[in-house]
């Protein structure tokens, strides 16, 4: 084993560098922001409003589109169908294209003169420059995370259990609700968290579809381009704090879920 010691040291060193690379910039902006500055920004109406907007739009995007995506994830995990690989690749497209490109595509899709835009406006919903547009943009870039997590979760449920449930007289819908979903629940929940976090942090797609009302990533960008770094930093720190807080809370709650399931 002694022969491996230098390698172990090298790996530790590299790992430390990567960790530092992530932590250092974050620590830097925290250290550069005084507590009074932090409090002042956090209670500022424009900032608080944008954070609230970002939180609820991303959450709504996750719930609305996520619920529709879960049965689809099950199909991807269980069924064989032609062009399945193509479908899987299509699902990953939002991850690999730039947010701004996604924004341009969505804009064309939901603009007032598009089919969806006309349907929306007939029901009194306007996408562009409005919260429905923000929700659509967030959902577009973040939905792959949920679909992939849920698909892997469903795939990990032993198919035999679903078969056993069918054999015991349960309808396919009942099997899905009482066996598949409960057993894939951890993966689905973690997919929801990932989707929500991704939607919340989206800038490119959101800024193109709706500059106003301003989500926090847009607000940070606006402050930076109009007033400079020192003005954008406190908002950034507040937003990162809120994100981390929610992330930690949800992780804790979901791990409690997991333990209860054991």
């Amino acid at each position, binding site marked *: 084993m002694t022969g491996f010691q230098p390698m172990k040291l090298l790996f530790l060193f590299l790992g430390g560098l990567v960790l530092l690379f992530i932590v250092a910039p974050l620590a830097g902006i925290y250290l550069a922001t005084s507590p009074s500055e932090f409090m002042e920004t956090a209670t500022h109406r424009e900032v608080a409003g944008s954070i609230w907007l970002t939180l609820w739009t991303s959450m709504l995007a996750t719930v609305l589109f996520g619920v529709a995506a879960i049965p689809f994830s099950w199909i991807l995990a269980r069924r064989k169908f032609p062009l399945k690989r193509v479908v899987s690749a299509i699902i990953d497209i939002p991850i690999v294209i730039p947010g701004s490109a996604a924004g341009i595509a969505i804009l064309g899709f939901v603009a007032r003169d598009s089919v969806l835009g006309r349907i929306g406006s007939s029901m009194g919903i306007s996408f562009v420059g409005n919260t429905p547009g923000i929700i659509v943009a967030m959902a577009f870039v973040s939905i792959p995370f949920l679909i992939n997590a849920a698909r892997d979760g469903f795939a990990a449920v*032993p198919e*035999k*259990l679903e*078969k*056993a*449930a*069918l*054999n*015991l*007289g*349960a*309808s*396919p819908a*009942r099997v899905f609700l*009482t*066996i598949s979903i*409960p*057993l894939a629940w951890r993966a689905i929940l973690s997919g929801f968290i990932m989707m929500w976090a991704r939607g919340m942090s989206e800038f490119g797609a959101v800024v193109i579809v709706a500059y106003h009302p301003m989500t926090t990533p847009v607000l940070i960008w606006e402050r930076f381009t109009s007033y400079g770094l020192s003005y954008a930093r406190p908002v950034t720190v507040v937003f990162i704090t809120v994100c981390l807080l929610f992330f930690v809370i949800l992780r804790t709650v979901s791990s409690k879920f997991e333990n209860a*399931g*054991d």
Partner: protein
Amino acid sequence: MLAIEKISLRLGQFELNRVSFEVEKGEYFVLLGMSGSGKSVLLQVIAGLIPAGEGGVFLNGREITGEKVQKRGVGLVFQDAALFPNMNVYENIAYPLKARKRGRREIEKEVHELARLTGVDQLLKRSTVNLSGGEKQRVALARALALKPECLLLDEPLSSLDAQLRHELRSLLRKLNHNGQTIIHVTHDYEEAVLLAQRIGVIEGGTVVQQGTPSEVFQHPRSEFVARFTGIRNFFSGTLLDGAGTSRKFRINDIEFFLLSDEPPGEGFIVVRAEDIILSESMARSSAVNNFRGVVTERIPARMGTEVVVDIGIRMAVVLSDESAGSLGLEEGREIWISFKASALKFIRK
């Protein structure tokens, strides 16, 4: 009652080839075959979990080949029990009742009755995750019975259990059968077949090569595969006599064998491996206590050596090397002595 007609199917490495058999109401039918012979696939075809390629499944004269899985009324117990880990024992047993939208009271009553019958009434509130193998099988049985299945399908239900638990579960299966439950049980273990089956079907390479009562199948294997696979050409029913200690006698008609057993006296079977019997020209003075004079009635080349059938009042099969068979000059009609030790006899209670 349940009829399988010419089921053919290819599924990966498994293949079923025109499988046909019938099971009567209240019958205990054992499908005996090596692992990979397609017997588990066949059960899933009957349950509708794998579509039949060709052929049909008939229940009480009605074809159910294309019937929805959840409407078939055949309960399948998987080899590893397949209990739902997100539910406790009670909820597992109640699952089929809830699926049928029974009332809460009725479900509670039914679950408790089934739990008593299968001996899991102390476990109802337990999680299924840390049950023992035997407990899991019992819960899976109770759950399948809650369906009130016309026919119960069991996939190697005893294979993961130790000897004591096997014994207990076998008694439970017999009890269920005595209560009128039709059962199809697949296994690779001939002892299970002997102990439980009213009729046996031997499955080889995806097809049923022989079916009949245990004595028909074991004493008159219709193919070398059956003979080799069951491995017990010498299989006889009779009575274990009372006696002191473990040295006992077993009587078939007026022939008595010495054997070692601590079982109580009663009806049962004995098994002697054909390889454990010695042939000699005159009565051998040896440690073997079972010595009989008989007549060679058959001499058949076997896969390994020669098989000779000697009639000593019952027909016993003996396997020996070609060299021995040659030097003894075992032509048909020749008189010969057979001998085997008491410990070569295995007694199986009925």
